[in-house]
């Protein structure tokens, strides 16, 4: 009886986990806890390299006024011309709520402040946790899992190993996801990412975005990251953090000089 129970339990597990879902991780992925040592070491916190704050050139404003940024609608050449035109119209007409339009869009490798991330391996799935709040689930299987949403901001990501390179294909991206002012992603967009170690402490993500509604040709982006194995991972979201530099209520930059409550007294000299 005991053997029968064991056999039955295994059979149920197989049926639920694989047999009823031909694209499942069990069926498709050689990745097991035992095999993790055979995959590239992606452990630790990865921090974007490159200038942390890359500002568009300032445009001279009226005498005495602070310079404004230009370049919002100066789009890369892969963007269709009409996208730029719509962008310029939108800039003139509207002021979006930037928190409501924060993208969770996977074609944009994490960058800048909040762009640090971790990559976690479990059998059948790789999880990428980005400090700015996005958690990506990359399924190591042949097709999206049953129950995957038809469309979402971050889409559905399917991964496979090509040697030591993790190749991730993302489909199901929300066609209404904002891209630039006045333009959304459009239908049939997809992203292919190639994630690999450059050396022991450097990781590179190459993302190629296909978005026929707004791009006349696929657009490739590359971002490099440095590993910090012992670094404390600190999630944050500029839409919820206390921000001394930007007042969301007014939409104004600010420099909040309210002193912290626990400052020591001035020096006695």
């Amino acid at each position, binding site marked *: 009886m005991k053997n029968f129970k064991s056999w039955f339990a295994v059979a149920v597990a197989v049926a639920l986990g694989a047999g009823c879902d031909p694209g499942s991780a069990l069926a498709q992925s050689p990745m097991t806890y035992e095999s993790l040592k055979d995959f590239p070491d992606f452990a630790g916190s990865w921090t974007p390299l490159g200038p942390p704050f890359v500002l568009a050139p300032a445009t001279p404003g009226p005498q005495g006024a602070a310079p404004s940024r230009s370049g*919002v609608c100066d789009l890369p050449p892969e963007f269709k011309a009409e996208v730029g035109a719509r962008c310029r119209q939108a800039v003139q007409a509207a002021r979006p709520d930037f928190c409501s339009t924060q993208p969770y869009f996977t074609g944009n490798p994490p960058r800048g402040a909040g762009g640090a991330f971790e990559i976690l391996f479990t059998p059948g799935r790789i999880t990428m946790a980005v400090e700015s709040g996005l958690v990506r689930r990359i399924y190591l299987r042949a097709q999206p899992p049953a129950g995957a949403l038809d469309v979402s901001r971050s889409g559905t990501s399917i991964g496979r190993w090509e040697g030591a390179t993790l190749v991730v294909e993302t489909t199901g991206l929300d066609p209404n996801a904002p891209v630039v002012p006045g333009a959304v992603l459009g239908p049939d967009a997809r992203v292919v990412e190639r994630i690999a170690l450059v050396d022991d402490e450097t990781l590179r993500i190459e993302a190629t975005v296909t978005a026929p509604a707004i791009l006349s040709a696929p657009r490739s982006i590359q971002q490099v990251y440095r590993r910090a194995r012992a670094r404390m991972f600190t999630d944050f979201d500029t839409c919820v953090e206390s921000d001394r*530099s930007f007042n969301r209520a007014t939409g104004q930059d600010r*420099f909040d000089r309210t002193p912290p409550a626990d400052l020591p007294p001035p020096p006695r000299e």
Partner: protein
Amino acid sequence: MMRGRLLGFLASCLLLPTDIALAHHSYAMFDGSGTSKVTGTVAKLEWQNPHAFVWVYVRTPDKTDTYDLWAFENGSPSVLQAHGWNKDSLKVGDKVEVEYWRLRDGSIGGHCEKFALSDGSTLQCPSDLGRRR
């Protein structure tokens, strides 16, 4: 103008123009034409997102017994750590010379460019404000 800043932020978040701003505010509040220096005593390194702030007591000009509290915006902890900082990089009481980008409104403080400590070491603040000149 503020609308433009917000849209700039949006574009930085969204699809791909990698050469567009990554910061979450415009930095227009800072005078990018050049840096200044001030010497003082660290009151606190506020290790927080999205920007760490450094609070420094600076002796009030022409007075011997009073201090002003200066505030310096810095990068985010994740960016700072990539530049060798940690939350103990500056301790209460440390004597520092701060090189900084002034606030356009003339108030005391700004965006730090570099901290020089009394032991001769320096801490670079992550900023490319200088490249905008």
